[in-house]
């Protein structure tokens, strides 16, 4: 049976991926072209979502914003999954001192409220896409590490691992060929759900002015700017908010749908 959650999630994520991929071809306007005679124009046939306080077309800025948002969240979650997965695999496979040391490092990162950790890192590293990506990866890697470690710890006791060892397989081969595939399902669910969280976090950092700096058209910054026009031009804060909600909802539904299908035991439940 097709899951409605999975389908709706796929549609929402699919549209936003499409918009991000084809942003330059979706409008005749440029995201940076100002038109001061046409500031804060409401949505119309000319400007589908209206214009911002510099008369820039909001639709094309949102489309380019999708690129930034997805690039930052996808790359930070990828780094987090690679790093966390490796740490978790090594930790769960070798156990003992290696596990103890690696898990203390994980605990160190878990000592901070996640968004505060990201803010602190951006404060030290400075703003910009690279800092934000690193900061978010630093927040998310611990979850994959703990998930993969837990799965590895239980799988490593199973007979097929002993059999592989008896057949002469080396550590690296057992980890990559036998154990890693067992973790793939739960990890992909966790990653999908993390992308949603990463998008909100990136937008939150930009909203506070710590993320990627203007004039880059981020959703968070546009939203922060929209607050100044709350009394008169409500849509300026509404449009980027809807864009974030659409995307996050999409990834969350996709993650939930994947979980129902791939992980009925709920290993990746958060």
């Amino acid at each position: 049976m097709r899951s409605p959650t999975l389908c709706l999630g796929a549609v929402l994520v699919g549209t936003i991926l499409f918009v991000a991929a084809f942003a330059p071809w979706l409008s005749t306007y440029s995201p940076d072209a100002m038109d001061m005679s046409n500031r804060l124009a409401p949505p119309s046939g000319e400007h589908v979502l209206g214009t911002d306080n510099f008369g820039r077309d909001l639709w094309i800025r949102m489309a380019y914003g999708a690129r930034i948002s997805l690039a930052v969240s996808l790359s930070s979650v990828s780094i987090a999954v690679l790093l966390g997965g490796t740490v978790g695999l090594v930790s769960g496979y070798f156990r003992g001192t290696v596990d103890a040391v690696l898990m203390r490092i994980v605990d160190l990162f878990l000592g901070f409220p996640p968004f505060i950790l990201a803010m602190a890192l951006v404060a030290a590293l400075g703003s910009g896409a690279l800092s934000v990506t690193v900061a978010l990866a630093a927040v998310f890697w611990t979850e994959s590490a703990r998930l993969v470690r837990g799965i590895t710890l239980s799988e490593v006791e199973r007979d097929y691992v002993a059999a592989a060892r008896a057949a002469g397989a080396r550590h690296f081969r057992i980890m990559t060929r036998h154990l890693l595939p067992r973790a793939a399902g739960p990890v992909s669910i966790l990653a999908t759900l993390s992308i949603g969280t990463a998008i909100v976090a990136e937008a939150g950092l930009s909203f506070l002015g710590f993320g990627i700096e203007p004039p880059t058209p981020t959703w968070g910054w546009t939203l922060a700017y929209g607050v100044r026009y709350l009394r008169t031009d409500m849509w300026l804060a509404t449009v980027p908010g809807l864009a974030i909600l659409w995307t996050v909802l999409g990834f969350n539904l996709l993650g939930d749908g994947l979980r129902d299908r791939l992980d009925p035991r709920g290993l990746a439940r958060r």
Partner: protein
Amino acid sequence: MTRYALLRLWLVVPTLAGVLLFVFALLELVPGDPAVVFLGENATPEAVASLREELGLDRPLPVRLFDYGWDVLRGDLGQSIFQREPVLDIVLRRLPATLELAFASFLLAVLSGVALGTMAALWRGSFLDVAASAVAQLGVSMPVFWLGILLMAWLSVDWGWLPAVGRGEPLVSALTSGDIRALTDALAHLVLPTVTLAIHHAAVISRLVRASMLTTLHEEYVVAAHARGLTLSHVTAAHALSNAILPVLSVLGVRFGALLGGAVLTESIFGWPGLGQLAVTAISERDLPLVQGVVLIFALMFILVNLLVDLAHASLDPRIRFATLKAHA
């Protein structure tokens, strides 16, 4: 329970040491010379040299780390670069506002999440269940800052029902003074930030409670309680909910951490004069000693609440005590 409590307390020590090490390392992560970065390119060489000395950058790294740890233990979090005041004083001034907002939201999130989740599970498949699930899914995906802005736009700007920004009298002093006007004012200011901050977590908790309740409701002891002729409300409260709540309790610590992050955004939207707003100012000014102080206090709050949640969880569920003691035997 005492043995568990002592062990759990002892486990806080390495976490605290790690947090301290990380907060110290923030200054090392700054690319280039931190003194130049903080004061700007146009700063005089004398000012830069003086700040380098103040930050201790002229001393070797291990000495600085040791000094930093020792200073923090004595309650000295350093000087703010721009406010020329001890960081601890600034932070302690802002702490009560954040505690008020965070605990009010946490309470609201837990109570409404448990209530919604329980009702959704009891009337599974009903309109209420479907509606609650949809609202929860939206609540989970809604960015806290956008929700805050929408609520502010409708309830304050358009309809003028509630104050848009600021904090009234501190709630505790309004409560103890018995001044009704101060109390209404304090509550009126508290409503929007609290609701904004709570909704995401209420949604997460309601989903967990619903799932956990659905499992519990089919357990044999619940079925047996029904068979003995006990009323639905009695069975729910005394048998099902008290067991369904345990898995929820285990995530409350993590929830509180996420809530503190949301508090930063909520405070800056509603001009709530707490630690979050202070963090935002400190980061924009690149006042790193102040950033370090705020981050340290946030981490301490988080660790403390995690400790309390774990203790509560263990006192309600002996399995947790035994598992933890066994793991560290």
